[in-house]
C-alpha cells in the first residue's frame, strides 16, 4: 500500500495547478484570459499558481501584444508534460492497487 503517495508530484497537490496542466497538455498554447474563464477563478489566484508552475519549469510564458493589449500565452514544457503524465500514471496505479487489495 505504500507504493506511491510520495510519488505523486507535490506541484500538482493543488487542484488549480493540476487543472492548468490538463489544459496545457491538451492544447499547444492557452492565453491567460481564456484560462481564467475556463477555470472560473480570480486573476490573482490564477497568476500565483501559474507563477508556481513556471518556477518548477513546467510551463513557459510567451508575452506578446494584440494591438495595444498585452496578450500572455502559456505553454507546457517537455519536463512539465512528463511530470503531468507521471502524475496521472501514479493516480491510475493507485486505483489498480486499491482494487486488487
Amino acid at each position, binding site marked *: 500500500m505504500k507504493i506511491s503517495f510520495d510519488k505523486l508530484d507535490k506541484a500538482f497537490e493543488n487542484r488549480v495547478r493540476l487543472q492548468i496542466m490538463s489544459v496545457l497538455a*491538451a492544447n499547444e498554447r492557452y492565453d491567460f484570459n481564456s484560462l481564467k474563464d475556463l477555470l472560473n477563478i480570480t486573476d490573482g489566484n490564477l497568476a500565483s499558481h501559474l507563477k508556481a508552475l513556471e518556477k518548477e519549469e513546467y510551463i513557459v510564458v510567451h508575452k506578446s501584444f494584440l494591438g495595444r493589449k498585452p496578450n500572455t500565452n502559456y505553454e507546457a514544457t517537455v519536463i512539465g508534460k512528463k511530470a503531468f503524465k507521471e502524475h496521472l500514471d501514479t493516480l491510475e496505479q493507485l*486505483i489498480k492497487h486499491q482494487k486488487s487489495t
Partner: protein
Amino acid sequence: MEEKEIHDELAAIRGLMERSSKFISLSGLSGILAGIYASIGSGVAYYILYAGDYPVKHNSHYFIAEGIQSIINIYSLLLLGILVLLASVVTAIILSSRQAKRKGQPIWGKISQSLLFHMSIPLLTGGLLILIFMYDGSYGIVAPASLIFYGLSLVSASNFTFTDVKYLGLCEIALGLIAACLPSYGLLFWALGFGVLHIIYGGMMYLKYDR
C-alpha cells in the same frame, strides 16, 4: 486518497482537457431544426420552380436551370435560401449558448472562435464561387457546390468539436459529388443533404450528447 476521490480527479482532468480544446456545446437539437427548415425550404423552392408546370417535368434535363426562366424566380429563391440559413444560424446560436451555459463553456471564447474561423474559409470560398458561376448563368453548380463546400467546412471544423461532425461532412461531400453527376436532380440532393442528413445527425447528436 480514497478510490472515489482519485476517480473524480481523473474524470475532472479528462473533462477539462476536452472542454479546453473542443467546443462540446454544439446542440444536436439545432441540427434537427436546421434539417426541418431546409426541408420546408426545399418544398417551397420546388413549388416556386414548378408551380403551374404540368405535368411535373421530372425527366427534363437541368432540372433547376430550366425552372429559372424569370428573374423573379432567382430572387425569390435567393431570398428563400437566405431565410433558411438565417433561421438555422439563429437557432444554432440560441440552443448552443443554452447548452454552453449548462456545460460551463463560454459561447464566445477561444475555441468557438477557431471553430468558426476554420469553418468560414471553405464556406466563403464556396459561396463566392457559386455566386460567380450564377452570374454567368450556370445554375447547375449551385446544389453540388454548396453541398461539397459545406461538407469541406464541416470536416475542417470537426477538429474543434465532436468527431461526428467529420462524418457528416464526408457524407455531404459524397452527396455533392453524386449531385454533380446528376444535374437534373439538384434540388432533391440539396433536400437530402441539408434536410435529411441534418435531421439524422442532429438526432444522433441529441441522443448522444445533449442530455
